[in-house]
């Protein structure tokens, strides 16, 4: 139906952090886009990765499964992962499924970058 093109994924770098912007719905159809963006920033040698969510009206369990896959790779590659920009509801969902054990959850991108700064200074 109409889900396939509902997510835009792009990457950028700010203050030494690789930011993956996820704009739109995160569902089973997002797998290739998200994994490809993660591979891109990892191939560039990024140690700190931020998944920055925007306008995410729909994140389902299939989308969360993709993010768990990213967590697995982040652990394997000794990177640090954080997420930002989630609505209160999806912050709750991420905590419910246990993703918060593996990725710090921040309200917004600036807070996340501050968190990474503290982490790298420690």
């Amino acid at each position, binding site marked *: 139906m109409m889900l396939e093109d509902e997510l835009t994924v792009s990457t950028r770098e700010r203050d030494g952090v690789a930011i993956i912007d996820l704009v739109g719905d995160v569902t089973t159809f997002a797998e290739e886009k998200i994994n490809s963006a993660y591979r891109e920033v990892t191939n560039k040698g990024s140690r700190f990765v931020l998944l920055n969510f925007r306008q995410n009206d729909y994140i*389902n*369990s299939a989308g969360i499964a993709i993010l*768990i896959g990213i967590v*697995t790779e982040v*652990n394997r590659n000794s990177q640090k992962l954080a997420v930002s920009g989630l609505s209160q509801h999806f912050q709750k*969902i991420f905590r419910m*499924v*246990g993703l918060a*054990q593996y990725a710090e959850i921040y309200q917004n991108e600036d807070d996340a970058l501050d968190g990474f700064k503290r982490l790298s200074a420690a």
Partner: protein
Amino acid sequence: MELVLPNELGYELIARDAVAAFARRAGMPRDQIDDVKTALCEACINAIEHGNSMNPELRVQVSCCVDDDRLVIEVCDQGVSPFAPKAEPLSMVEKVSGFGSLRGMGLMLISQLSDESGFVPHGEVGNCFRFAFQRHRAASLSC
């Protein structure tokens, strides 16, 4: 209210928007409607992927009614074999450690977001999953 959906991923969003409008009319608060929306989508995805095994010839039926106390939603598929979820889903630690599928969180999410949930006897072929939410700010609206 009753909806019949094609057995195709994406149509759960149509049901979600309709049920969210229904819940709003029933006076439920926004944060609880967010819970309803997520639970409904997960139940529909289970029906489409597992109950109906992605068969495009089959349908998913969503019924939704409200009384003074609760919003009750049923999602029924036409699958020929019973949906048999694992008794104990994998923990996040187990998933991240690669001990099994990364999927399989839908029922857990529904049970945590709703006030009651479970499969109910279904007279015809298929599975029927019912889940309910206590109403906090009641308004009168019939089924």
